[in-house]
């Protein structure tokens, strides 16, 4: 009879099932994006998924590794990337972002499980720098002459407005209710806080995403924004705006929780999330970019080896004693 080492039973949850779970968690976010941006959501996500799959197949074949599309990780990268794009992003930008995500973000490091940086964010950051006009504030605005595809796209994104206000210019702050529901302009997946919460909590309950990461991020933003509000009580952009607006919740629940590029230990995960939240606040407040989720995640990715080292748990019963000299 064939033998194998124990344990002989398991949970039946495989890598592929974990990835499918992430896709399920993204369903509400995708649905909200379709509700707000119509066909554009489907188009962007579709292009990114197809490009990521093509990139994965091409690069792994080039490295003469078995092609592993079956683990669905390239699909996850594609969906997360697609949902982080502006609605009117041109096709070639999507394709470049996808190929950079899979090629530079993942395959170069040795494929799934070996990469240091979140692949989708590597691709997204690359195109942000390479095509600043298409991914900056203007990239979200409808500039055509006819009727816009949806109403929201004629207004600047809430984060751009916040930047203007901070610079002393005039602007109309988005209401909390639209920020919560999602009928505002922005990257496809980030506009609806509600959808991010529903999908994100599903992932946390299923333990597909580590709850310590979003908790750390949300707490950090709440604390820092809260202190800011106390210092500037007349500010129109409040703590809740910081929490519900922009890509914070999307990033905290779906991007930062990528297991491969986040810490292993529960304490490390919390610090990672908190660090990401704090960096988001720094970028929102002090940089030229209206939003900072992608750079925050990438910066925190770089700290993961250190966080893993610093947060090695204390074994039950204490550390292994040093071998004693025989008395």
């Amino acid at each position, binding site marked *: 009879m064939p033998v194998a080492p124990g344990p002989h039973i*398991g949970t039946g949850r495989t890598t592929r099932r974990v990835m499918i779970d992430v896709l399920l968690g993204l369903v509400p976010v995708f649905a909200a994006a379709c509700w707000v941006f119509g066909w554009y959501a489907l188009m962007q996500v579709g292009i990114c998924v197809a490009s990521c799959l093509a990139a994965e197949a091409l690069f792994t074949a080039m490295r003469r590794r078995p092609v592993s599309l079956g683990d669905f990780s390239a699909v996850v990268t594609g969906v997360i990337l697609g949902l982080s794009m502006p609605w009117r992003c041109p096709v070639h930008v999507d394709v470049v972002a996808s190929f950079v995500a899979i090629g530079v973000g993942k395959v170069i490091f040795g494929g799934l499980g070996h990469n240091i940086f979140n692949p989708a964010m590597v691709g997204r950051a690359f195109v942000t720098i390479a095509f600043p006009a298409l991914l900056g504030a203007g990239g979200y605005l409808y500039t055509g002459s006819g009727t816009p595809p949806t109403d929201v796209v004629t207004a600047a994104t809430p984060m751009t407005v916040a930047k203007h206000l901070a610079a002393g210019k005039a602007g109309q702050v988005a209401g909390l209710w639209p920020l919560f529901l999602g009928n505002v302009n922005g990257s496809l997946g980030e506009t609806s806080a509600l959808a991010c919460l529903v999908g994100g909590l599903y992932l946390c309950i299923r333990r597909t995403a580590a709850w310590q990461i979003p908790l750390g991020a949300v707490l950090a933003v709440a604390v820092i924004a809260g202190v800011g509000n106390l210092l500037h009580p007349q500010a129109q952009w409040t703590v809740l705006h910081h929490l519900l607006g922009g890509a914070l919740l999307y990033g905290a629940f779906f991007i930062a929780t990528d297991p491969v590029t986040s810490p292993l230990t529960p304490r490390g995960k919390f610090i990672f999330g908190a660090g990401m939240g704090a960096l988001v606040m720094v970028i929102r407040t002090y940089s030229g970019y209206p939003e900072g989720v992608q750079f925050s995640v990438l910066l925190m990715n770089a700290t993961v080896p250190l966080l893993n080292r610093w947060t090695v748990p204390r074994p039950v019963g204490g550390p292994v004693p040093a071998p004693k000299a025989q008395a």
Partner: protein
Amino acid sequence: MVSSAIPGTGRFARGLHPDDKKSISAGAGIEVLPTPKSVLIPLLQHIGAPCEPAVKPRAEVRLGQAVGEAKAFVSAPVHASIDGKTAAATVTTLPNGRHVAAIPITAAEEQSLSGQALWEDIYGGQWPTDGLGSFDPEQIVTAVRSAGLVGMGGAAFPTHVKLTPNEKRPVDTLVVNGCECEPYLTADHRLMLEAPAPIITGALLAARAAGAERIIVAIEDNKPDAAEAMAAAAEGTPVQVAIVQTRYPMGGERQLIPAVLGREVPTGGLPLDVGVVVVNVATAAAIARAVIRGKPLTHRVVSVTGEGINQPKNLLVPLGASYAELVAFCGGLADSAGRVIAGGPMMGFALAELDVPVTKGTSGVVVLTEEQLRRAEQTACLRCGRCVDVCPAGLVPTKIALAARHQDWETARRYYLTACFECGCCAYVCPANIPLVQLIRTGKATMPKE
């Protein structure tokens, strides 16, 4: 009355709650296996030094006669489990992969004890709980040692070593382990239901030998009937029955002692370091039999269970009977059977062939079906941290296992490789299906000593 007044919380950190599958065999009363035609008595059934043969080939032996002598302190003699005639010693491979010398015994036509009479001789009749003060501790330890007692929960550490008092490390509490936390297994459960009296007597004797004041029988909360039976048998004695949470691996000493007593066993240390001795319920019953009746360990209760066996049963079997014999008595393997495991599905070993003898530490035979087995392909580690979330020892299993795979001993030490006790929780949850325990076990064996 089941008492819940224990210093601990009845819980430990992390661990798992797999489907316990106890119902497959929990209702099956213990049956006595008919005397097999032959048995094969391994000379090493415990942790420690092997025995030396004490009988010549083709000698007549009687049930209970020593066939292997223990010369070292950390060792335990072995005894004939049937009446019969020995043959020349051979070598057998135990489920854990060790090759050991073994003495075959062919059964005589006439057996002095079998069936119900055998049960009565081992567990039946009266078991005193009063007047045990007439046994002095040394006498108890000697009786336990010559009876060849070892831990019957699986670890098979010689019991007399645990019970020998150590002046530097006094013992205050004896914990009797009735957790049986591995899924499927019900041997201890049935023993607590059907023979609680010898367990209580054995616990009193063990506590007397070790110098423990307090005696606590710990039972997981999925066996309330066993707790009731034990509490009834403990009436009028100082033995306390405590309910602990059903959680794997509660039966591990390092989980059970914190759960029951709130004390943490130091890494690299022993329960003795915190004043505790733990014995399994079946071991306790065997202690009573050794001291009160002067009889050695020759039989044990084994669960034969799982979805892949035709008639799941709990059996009283002579040590040295082959797994094939047990399986045949339980209606044979079902067509769906995919793997036969010696022990439980978490820590047990898969059998390559069934012609292997049952030993003192064999708590069960679990037959899983083909479709229950972990079959998913292995992927790279996702660094998801699930293994960290469940490791009851508080380790980072992925770091240890992957360091062991790459023979990176510095990293393996930094992450406390040697603190792993191979419970299997990490590999159970790993979505990448990495054989974490196997890698760690191999690492422990190959890591150079400092």
